[in-house]
């Protein structure tokens, strides 16, 4: 229910799996990114799915690259990731099937409250990046070839700047949460998905420097591992899970999920 999800309960990773009275008949493995798992969304959704179907969802949260690799090797049954371009390519190659745009949110630029680069009030991310580069203010990059990282690199390209190797540009090759922490400690800016930022909002002093630029759209996709490639995968159950997420009920649940009083994800395909 909405109440349970919106207090701090889901943040508590130790407290989150109270097995229900539901009889578990089978299990599927969901490979996903840290951004969907760490904020508690899946701990909110999955028990409801289990209740309906008796299928337990075992979540493995990794970097997007590792999640895709895990799926491609057939070590997971279903994926929930946010790197649309790679996803579509892999679907085309036949690695995954039944891909749907399940939900979206957006990227934001966050930075220190003092805003040394003067990003506040700027409307476009490219412009903000220009200001950061001009002022040689610290910018922390995930540098892990994740969806977020690729988005960030596209923005630098649009700004006509090559930040690689600059003193003020810290490429750290870590997850979003870690990146936010490093940005916080080094009083720098970074590009983040909104979900992760809200989830760890409490423990950092970073504030939102820029939001709302249509260029900062972040689409999540759900898809199944192709049973033709990996005959052992539980394709039917994966389909059940995808159907659940795409159903009206599932979409409504996603819409209702809140952390720290904020909505983290919006159902369906964002750029209509």
């Amino acid at each position, binding site marked *: 229910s909405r109440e349970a999800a919106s207090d701090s309960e889901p*943040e508590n*990773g*130790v*407290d989150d799996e*109270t097995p229900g009275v539901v009889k578990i008949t089978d299990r599927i493995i969901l490979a996903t990114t840290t951004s969907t798992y760490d904020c508690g969304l899946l701990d909110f959704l999955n028990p409801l799915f289990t209740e309906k179907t008796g299928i337990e969802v075992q979540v493995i949260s990794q970097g997007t690259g590792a999640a895709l690799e895990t799926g491609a090797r057939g*070590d997971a049954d279903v994926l929930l990731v946010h790197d649309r371009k790679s996803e579509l390519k892999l679907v085309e190659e036949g690695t995954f099937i039944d891909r749907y745009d399940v939900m979206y949110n957006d990227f934001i630029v966050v930075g220190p409250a003092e805003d040394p680069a003067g990003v506040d009030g700027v409307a476009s991310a490219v412009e903000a990046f220009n200001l950061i580069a001009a002022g040689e203010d610290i910018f922390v990059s995930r540098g892990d070839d994740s969806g977020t990282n690729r988005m960030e690199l596209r923005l630098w390209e649009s700004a006509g700047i090559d930040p690689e190797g600059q003193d003020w540009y810290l490429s750290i090759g870590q997850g979003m949460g870690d990146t936010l922490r490093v940005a916080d400690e080094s009083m720098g800016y970074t590009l983040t998905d909104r979900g992760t930022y809200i*989830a760890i909002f409490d423990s950092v002093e970073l504030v939102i420097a820029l939001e709302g630029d249509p260029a900062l759209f972040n689409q999540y996709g759900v898809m199944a591992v192709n049973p033709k490639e990996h005959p052992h995968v539980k394709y039917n159950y994966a389909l059940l899970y995808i159907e659940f997420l795409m159903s009206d009920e599932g979409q409504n649940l996603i819409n209702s999920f809140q952390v720290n009083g904020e909505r983290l994800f919006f159902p369906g395909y964002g750029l209509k």
Partner: protein
Amino acid sequence: MSRLFEGIIEAFRLIITLNPALLQIVSLSLRVSGMAVVIAALIGIPLGALLGLKPEKKTRLLNKIIFTFMGMPPVVAGLIIYLILSRQGPLGVLGLLYTPTAMIIAQVFLASPIVIGLTMIGIRARGCDVEEMARSLGAGSVLIAWTVIMESRFAILGAIITGFSRVVAEVGAVMIVGGNIAGHTRVMTTAIVLETRKGNFELAIGLGLILLIISFIINSGLYSIQKGGKNG
């Protein structure tokens, strides 16, 4: 720092109120690492004793290789086991990936070189004299091995504790082969990493403290076994 206290208190509250999820994680940690160390000891102590009784010149290369394997990054060990157990890997059909068994395998891989290497060092100190004495008194090979091991039991205890310490504190390998699945393959260290990632540093440290306390209790237990083994 007050948040640190809160986190630690929160961790202890979870333990004292017998929080089922936490208890389950702790017990899995102990089962996985305990089993891994038992297996590593069964492999490592005899092997280490054997090597320790050989003249050092003959085992020099082997020593170096064993010492090198002590420095195997857990992530790499985890990846190797992953590639073997993965569906496409040679042992994929067994379906062991993301199970506690896979975690035990990875930890055995990490703990064995430590147990072998340190047992060997411990036995070198006076193992050969003891071996000869035992042999001269008519001991068969099993009794010889047992005697040599008992004579170096303090060093071997150290080897086991060091091995256990390594695996119980390790996260890279169990994360990869176990998947940190809640209620299934989540152990103390992967829970700590998860909390860290979420920014709950204080809770993470609290969990770390609990892990240390458990280690302390286990060490104390091993200590008394070692003392009791042969009249102090």
